[in-house]
């Protein structure tokens, strides 16, 4: 109760772990059906793991909630649109780029009066009036000219891009590649990879997630292909998916376990490659603060590495905000199914950021990135939210021009 971000906003028993577990238990005892309200309650969880962390028995409420969601999904209680997105759109190789291109055009029409560089986002009309959609990149990251195989020297690092870095924030993926290269790694980006599958998995769409897991496994670990020393990604959620859930989805393929073993969050890898070895704290440059993504701080237990990197940047200073580990409220699908709640939770984060007087917010997860960019944008148009690799790229290697 003291730690649940949803409860902190709703103050209702349905938000907190105890309530979720009781609801699921009541359902299993046959007292509650798979009603709409049941779905509302089961989807109102960020899967952030805060409750598990503070629970003496380490009850994994998030896992229980996911199982409950899987049951909902199997029994086809998901809305047709979500089902379509999760089962057909995300696993599809061709659909998503086409759709996003379409969205880009429509965005251009709607937002014709808003200059591209103003930092404002478009707003959807209709029910979710205040919804701001981040701009979609002109050219996806994967459409660029990228190293598709290891070159032969240095630590062999495979970069998993993820949807946000591919379509919305190619700078993050580009910075990941650039920074790792600058740190002496032998980097490549397999072309066939797709969505990590976490949105489907989190929503209980296990089969769709399995399809994606299979595709990513074939892309990253082709039989007879090069075996990476490490697999990394600018997104902690993708990393958590590949590390924790991919081998669960493909239990019979030994390559899945090998892949999972190779997954290292970006900042941990960058520290390992010497990314925090610098001249010490900087006295100049913008003031950065850092938001701990749930999947990194609780998922990987990694809070130090990003700070080691950010406190040793020659071109920027660092300040700690209040409660940096508190969930931003994105929670993947949560942000879609409980938008108002999600926004209310992110507002608390915005207050912490503003109170820290930071000029820029750094995080290491695409979900947090989208959520916080939207939340900060609402309060402080133009406030920059970037990923750890981008921070390194901008303030460590003195190359301010990121590829578009």
């Amino acid at each position, binding site marked *: 109760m003291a730690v649940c971000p949803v409860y902190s906003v709703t*103050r209702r028993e349905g938000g907190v772990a105890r309530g979720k577990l*009781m609801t699921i238990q009541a359902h299993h005892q046959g*007292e*509650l059906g798979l*009603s709409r309200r049941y779905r509302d309650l089961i989807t109102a969880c960020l899967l952030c793991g805060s409750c598990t962390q503070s629970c*003496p*028995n380490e009850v994994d409420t998030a896992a229980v909630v996911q199982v409950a969601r899987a049951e909902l999904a199997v029994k086809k209680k998901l809305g047709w649109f979500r089902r379509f997105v999760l089962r057909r759109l995300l696993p599809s190789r061709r659909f998503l780029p086409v759709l996003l291109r379409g969205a880009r055009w429509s965005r251009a029409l709607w937002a014709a009066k808003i200059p591209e560089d103003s930092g404002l986002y478009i707003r959807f009309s209709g029910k979710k009036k205040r919804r701001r959609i981040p701009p979609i990149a002109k050219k996806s990251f994967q459409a660029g000219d990228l190293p598709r195989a290891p070159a032969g020297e240095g630590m062999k690092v495979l970069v998993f891009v993820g949807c946000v870095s591919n379509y919305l924030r190619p700078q993050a993926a580009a910075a990941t590649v650039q920074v790792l290269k600058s740190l002496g790694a032998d980097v490549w980006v397999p072309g066939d990879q797709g969505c990590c599958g976490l949105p489907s998995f989190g929503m209980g769409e296990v089969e769709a997630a399995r399809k994606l897991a299979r595709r990513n496994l074939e892309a990253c670990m082709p039989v007879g292909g090069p075996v990476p020393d490490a697999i990394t990604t600018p997104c902690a959620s993708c990393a958590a998916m590949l590390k924790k859930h991919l081998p669960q989805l493909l239990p019979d393929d030994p390559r899945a376990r090998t892949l999972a073993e190779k997954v290292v969050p970006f900042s941990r890898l960058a520290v390992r490659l010497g990314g925090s070895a610098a001249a010490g704290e900087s006295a100049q440059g913008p003031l950065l603060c850092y938001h701990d993504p749930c999947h990194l701080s609780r998922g990987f237990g990694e809070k130090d590495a990003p700070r080691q990197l950010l406190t040793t940047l020659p071109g920027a200073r660092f300040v700690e905000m209040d409660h940096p580990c508190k969930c931003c409220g994105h929670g993947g699908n949560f942000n879609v199914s409980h938008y108002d709640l999600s926004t209310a939770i992110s507002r608390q984060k915005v207050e912490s950021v503003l109170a820290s007087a930071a000029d820029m917010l750094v995080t290491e997860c695409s979900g947090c990135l989208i959520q916080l960019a939207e939340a900060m944008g609402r309060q402080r148009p133009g406030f920059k939210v970037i990923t750890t690799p981008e921070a390194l790229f901008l303030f460590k290697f003195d190359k301010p021009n990121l590829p578009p």
Partner: protein
Amino acid sequence: MDKSVIKELCGILGKEHVQSAPEDVALYAYDATPFAPVARPDAVVFPGSAEEVASVLQLANRVGFPVVPRGAGSGLTGGARPILGGVVVSTQRLDRILKIDSDNLQIVVQPGVVTEDLQEKVEAAGLFYPPDPQSKEFCTIGGNLAENAGGPRAVKYGVTRNYVLALQVVLPEGTLVRLGARTLKSVVGYDLLSLLVGCEGTLGIITEATLRLLPAPESRGTLLVVFDGMEAAAGAVAATFKAGVLPSAIEFMDQASIRCVEEYEPAGLPTDAAAVLVVEVDGSPPETERLAEKVKAVMEKSGARLIRTGASEEEAEALWKSRRAVGPALARIAPIKVNEDIVVPLSRLPQAVSGIHELAKKHGVKCACFGHAGDGNIHVNLLVDTGDADALRRADLAVDSIFELVIELEGSITGEHGVGTTKQRFIGMELKPEAIETMVRIKQALDPRGVLNPGKIFPSP
């Protein structure tokens, strides 16, 4: 419950603050009481004002349905469970701190304020609200008032009741009254404040409280004292007071508790010790130092094996952290724990702790004791594995005999948790029939239709 009643409730509170779907009421069918069966209400309401609470109670009297007040649902004796159905009144929307009055050392709060939030706000103003129940991170002040919550600091600072100056209360028939005064002294009429505080939600729903604050102590000192004998540790408590020291807390942990907490969150406690005391003194820095020295001398005389002083704030915090971790740590090794919070007069503490361990042994139940030894309040935890029905039965028998021992030692069967439903069958052990009869008559006088939190405290005749 009739649909028309739900409709009327919606009329009073607004539709969004009334829930009656099966999924929603299932969420208010329990509190933190172990093994309590679920008890679903017919509806849950979230009033936004005292007047709305009053209207709900008026409706309950007119139509005839039970009303059960609820804070965060962290109670351990089933007080917030709607065992006869009806309407749960949640105080979660009444969650504002209305005023901090530094001149008069007072704070005015609504019942849904979380205790720790209150303490943090008050501390920021250089003031101090001492009652600190274990669940302070999430429990509400309304629940603290209804249960007269205590905590480690009670030895010096007393319990919740000692900080209540005035209350706004909705009485069972729906009358809104103000009790008490904004002064430290007031002897006009009966002391109804004392009746309401600790009434377990059976005599009124508190909708606003004026609480007394203290200046924050300038400094605190913490000592860890290790003993080879459990009785010696318990005896050292009374010896401390005899030496003229009033510590702000004296906490006790027996060997089972120490081992358990060391496994869960190692803090370097000696696992071979029979018992440890964590003693806290406070005051101005020289005063704290002097008191700490005095405590040290008493403890040495009482046979302490080792005394460690938490010199820095971090060390002190680490000691307190391990003390607070005992409850959670025990929950880890035994999923089910019977947690009783007995109290005995200080001089009886050694007899109590050894007697309890003997009784637990006799009934073949694992037992860990820890708690607020400074005020004689010991949490007796009987540890039982899930599914072990026989052990559960033996634990029940052990509880019976432990309570008998406590009464024999002139103690009380519950110091903090209250009676609720789980201790109903024991109250006759402590209270004479005439005393129970008097209480029942008070309840009947204030709640003639028996709508407010019925079926609690007193066993049904």
